[in-house]
Each structure stands twice: as C-alpha cells, then as structure tokens.
C-alpha cells in the first residue's frame, strides 16, 4: 500500500509540472499583453521598457525557469491589471468559491443518498420513477440555465431570495442549490445503481436468509458497500465543481474564483489566469490524491494487498 501511495504521489507531482509547462507555453503563444497594457500613444521605447519589466524579452525557456523558481516560493507574478500579486488575488477569492462549492456538495450528498436508497428499495414504484425523471432533468439541464430559472422564480417573481452578490446566508441559497442540482442527480443515480447492483450479491442473500431485517440489509449491508465507490466519485466531483462553479458565479454575481478568471480573460491578465489554473489544478489533484488514499483505506481488499 505504501508503494502504491508513493507512486500516486509521484504521478501527481508529474502531472502538476506538465500543467505548469502547458499553461505557461500556451498563454505565451496566445498573444502579447503589452499592446493591451499600454495607452494608444505609447512610444517604441515604452514598449521595450514594459517588456523588460515584465520579463517578456528573455527566451521562453528562461522565462519558464524563472516562473517555476518563483512559483516554488509562491510568487506567481504580479497581476498586470490590479498591480497586486496574482496568487494573493486568487487566494482572496478562494473562500467565497469554497463556501459555494462545499455547501452545494453537502446539499447534493444529503439529498442524494437517502433518495437513491429509497429509490432503489422501491424500484419501479412511483417514487423511483419520479426521482429518476427528476435526475434526468438534473443531468440534462445546463447548470447556468438552472440558475437563471431559479432567479426568475425565487428572486424576480416570488421575491423570496436575493438574486446576486454574497453576504448573508440567504445569498448562498440560490447559487448553492442551482450548482448542486447536477451533482444531486448524478449522485442519486450512482447510489441507486450501486444499491441495485449490491442487492443481487451473495452476501445480501446470505443476510436475508439468516433472517436479518430488510432495514438492516439495506442500511447496514448494502448502503455501506455502495458508499465506498461513491466516496471516490463524490470527492472527484468536488474538484471539478470548483472549476464548474464559474458559470454559477457569473449568473449570481458571486465574487469567487470563477469571476476573477472571467474578468482576467477580458484584459488578458496572464499572471492571474496562470494562478487560477494552478490553484484549481492543485486543489483538484490534492483532492484526487486524498480520495484515492481514503478509498484504499476503506476497501479492505486493497488495504491488505502487498
């Protein structure tokens, strides 16, 4: 198991370096920020000077080396637009995004697990059909559109909840719920499918034939084993949710990472775009690594392997 973890760690580090290289290279192929930064009447001298201060005049490999060395110290450059360290800007926005993502993943898990179990144990009944139909709608709707529907219903028509901004808990309700819907549908299907699969296995039949009550069979034997693969997928969804929250943040004017990224695209603020990508990738990779460890630890078949 130790060897496995070591290999996973090594793999994660490699992936991370590949990402830094790709992001760095791609952004430098894409365009020159100097023209955007300088006023219309800038002289040739101004251009050369700005290129020097930004370090854009050096060979690409040297630039990447400097970038990597600085990144190790947590210095990802200064935002062209805001004049502040890019990493600081991104990290400042992180709590807002994490709040949104964690709330929405909690909402989806809390609803999806009982719903999936109930649905599986009443297969073919009305509740099962309704929740399957609901989950179909959930996985088929564009997440940003769900947000718009929520705004229309709960903010514009009913005037129950605020439609944008961050502040009170009421502000969190609509964005978190609309972001949760797709994962809720996905998790519910996963739990349901997992339960149905497990319910046909031998150890469930053994438990039943021993006279274990149906409740115990469902909640103790089946659910426990369903949740092991579920942990992996739910964990990995959390990382991608952080990137996916970008549309929800746009719709609800939520001041998170995604908004910062979208604003930075408009002004070609390279350091911030790089910092965003690296922060998201770091979180995503760490979560995946962590989830893998948990998974190995949860499943005794893997845990006891040499």
């Amino acid at each position, binding site marked *: 198991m130790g060897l496995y973890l070591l290999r996973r760690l090594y793999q994660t580090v490699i992936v991370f370096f590949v990402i830094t290289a790709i992001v760095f290279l791609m952004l430098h192929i894409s365009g020159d920020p100097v023209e955007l930064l300088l006023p219309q009447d800038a002289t040739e001298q101004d251009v050369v000077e700005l290129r020097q201060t930004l370090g854009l005049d050096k060979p690409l490999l040297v630039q990447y080396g400097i970038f990597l060395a600085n990144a190790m110290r947590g210095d990802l450059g200064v935002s062209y637009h805001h004049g502040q360290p890019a990493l600081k800007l991104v990290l400042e926005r992180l709590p807002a995004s994490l709040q949104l993502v964690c709330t929405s993943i909690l909402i989806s898990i809390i609803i999806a697990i009982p719903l999936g179990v109930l649905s599986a144990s009443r297969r073919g009944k009305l509740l099962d059909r309704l929740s399957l139909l609901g989950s*179909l709608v959930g996985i088929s709707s564009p997440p940003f559109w769900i947000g718009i529907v929520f705004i*229309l219903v709960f903010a514009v028509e009913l005037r129950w909840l605020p439609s944008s901004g961050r502040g009170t808990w009421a502000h969190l309700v609509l964005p978190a719920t609309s972001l949760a819907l797709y994962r809720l549908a996905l998790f519910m299907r996963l739990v349901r499918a997992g339960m149905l699969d497990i319910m046909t296995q031998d150890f469930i039949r053994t438990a039943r034939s021993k006279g274990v009550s*149906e409740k115990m069979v469902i909640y103790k034997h089946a659910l426990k084993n369903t949740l092991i693969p579920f942990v992996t997928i739910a964990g990995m969804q959390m990382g991608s949710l952080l990137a996916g929250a970008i549309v929800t943040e746009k719709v609800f004017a939520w001041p998170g990472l995604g908004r910062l990224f979208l604003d930075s695209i408009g002004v070609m603020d390279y350091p911030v775009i790089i910092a965003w990508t690296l922060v998201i990738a770091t979180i*995503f990779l760490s979560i995946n690594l962590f989830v893998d460890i948990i998974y190995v630890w949860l499943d005794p078949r893997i845990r006891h392997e040499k």
Partner: protein
Amino acid sequence: MKNNIKTAAPHTGNGPDSDTTYSAPMASFLGYKYIPAERQLLHSFVSNKLVLGASVLFILCVLGAVFAPLISPVDPIEQTLRARLRPPIWYERGLSPYILGTDRLGRDVLSNIIYGLRISLMVGILSVALSLVIGLTLGLIAGYARGFWENLIMRAVDVQLSLPLIMVALCFMVIFGQGLGKMIIVIAITGWAVYARTVRGTVLSIREKEYVEAAHALGFGPGTIMIKYLFLNAITPILVLTAVQVPRVIILEATLSFLGVGVPVSTPSIGLCIARGYQVLFSGSWWASIFPGLALMFLVGCINVLADWLRDALEPRSREQV
C-alpha cells in the same frame, strides 16, 4: 468478499415490504429469460415508452437541425428593431411571426433555438467523432505497440483525466480565441483520453487470446489483426462511451458560449442565446432565456435517455460510466 454479515444481529421474519423490493430485479431478470438474445435489443427498445418517446423527439431535433433554413420562421440573426423584446405570441403584445417572442435586438427566439440546436448537434457530433478518432488511434497504438509509446500515451491520458474538463476547455478557448472550428477541436482535445483508455483496455484484454495468436500464426499483419479483432471487440464500449459523451459535449459547448469564450457573437448558439436573454431577465423578459434552455434540456435529455438505454442493453453489468 466482505465479512460484515456476521456482525448483523439475528432476526426472525422479513420486513413487511421485503417481498416487493426483492421481486423487482428478479422479475426483470426472469422476464429477459424468455426473449431470444438476438431480439433483446429491439425488445428493450420497443417495450420502453420513455426510450421510444426520446428517440422520436431526438429524430425531430435532428430533422429540425438539418432543415433549419426551411422551417425556421425568420433569419435568426436578423434584427428587427420594431419588434424588440416581444413576448411569445399568446401574449397580448406578441407579434405574428415571432412565436416564442424576440430578444433585446428583435431577434426571433424560436429561429435562434432551431439554428442553435443545429450548432449544438454539430459541435456534439463532430467533436466527439474527432476525439473518437484521436482516442481510438492512440489507444490502439498504446495497447498494441507497448513499450515507450504506450507509456507516453498513457501518461498523457493520466494528465488529461486528472484535470477538470471545463478548466482545460476554458484555458484552451482563452488561448485560441473564439470560433466554431476552434471550439470543436478544443472540446475534442478534452475528450480523447477516455477513448484511448477504453480502447487500450480492450486491446490488452484480448491480445493474449488464442484467436489473436492464431491470426498471428497464420501470418495476418498487425493492421488486419487490429481492425478485425481488436476493433470489433472494442466497438461496444466505444458505442456506449460515445452515447455518454455527446450530451456532455453539448452542455460544454453551451457553457463555453454562455461564458463568452465559445462561438463568436454572430453565431446562433443556445449558450449565447441564453446569455443574451439573461441580460433582460430582470426587466421581466423571461422568454428569451427560458425557452432556449428548455430546448437544450429536451435535446440533451433525449440523448441521455437513449444513452442509458444503450448502456443497459449492451452492457447490463456496467455502472461505472455514469
């Protein structure tokens, strides 16, 4: 096998509803037994009303997309200033050819939906086809050639799969700029890895089989073997994967366009349409954003239903690719 059964307390008698919960999977299991294998696919298709309905709706969508210039009431990008922000036709202020109303610049919502679905389907099919070609080729090479190339390709797959798709797509779109063709390529790049992994897995699982060895011994070249045996074995997982990928890609396209990094603003795309409708949402003009989203939801929903059916029919035991 887990040994947690012994921890359960002994209990006499079953719960009141144990009979029904147990009978459903058994019934469907028993029901399948009487259908000849070759007719199972057709039977499961016809017997499921949801699947039938979804395929009818899907075919209508495809026809609508193909014949968009013929059926759409007006030109989707034509701006009619006298008909700005008209509600759907059943409202008092509704205007004649604009059945689902108009947006801020007087563009017909229905025509935009029809042309938008055309773009959605086009991006969905083309980019999935492209990632299929890339993934299939690299997967076959990785599985068949082994050694250095396998390592290189599989590490690339690892990198690709260890990143959030939307992040990769966003970064590439920012770098390359807007454009329909660019977006198809970018989305294809985000999707090839799953194909490569699946194809390689299939190749590895059958390359040691006797009939492949026999083909080798009979003097068939690697090309023939690849196409004849490896590809035929991989076709089922590829089909299922494709059915799952298309709806994802369609939503990704809408998302990128909604964020303003997808297709250029002059293109009638559902994502752009919703983005424009969103700007006028607070002034009460809900139709410009709700209808396009609803249309996309139906299209994606149909494909999801068909994909689920296809997966259940072809791979009854698989549940990993959700």
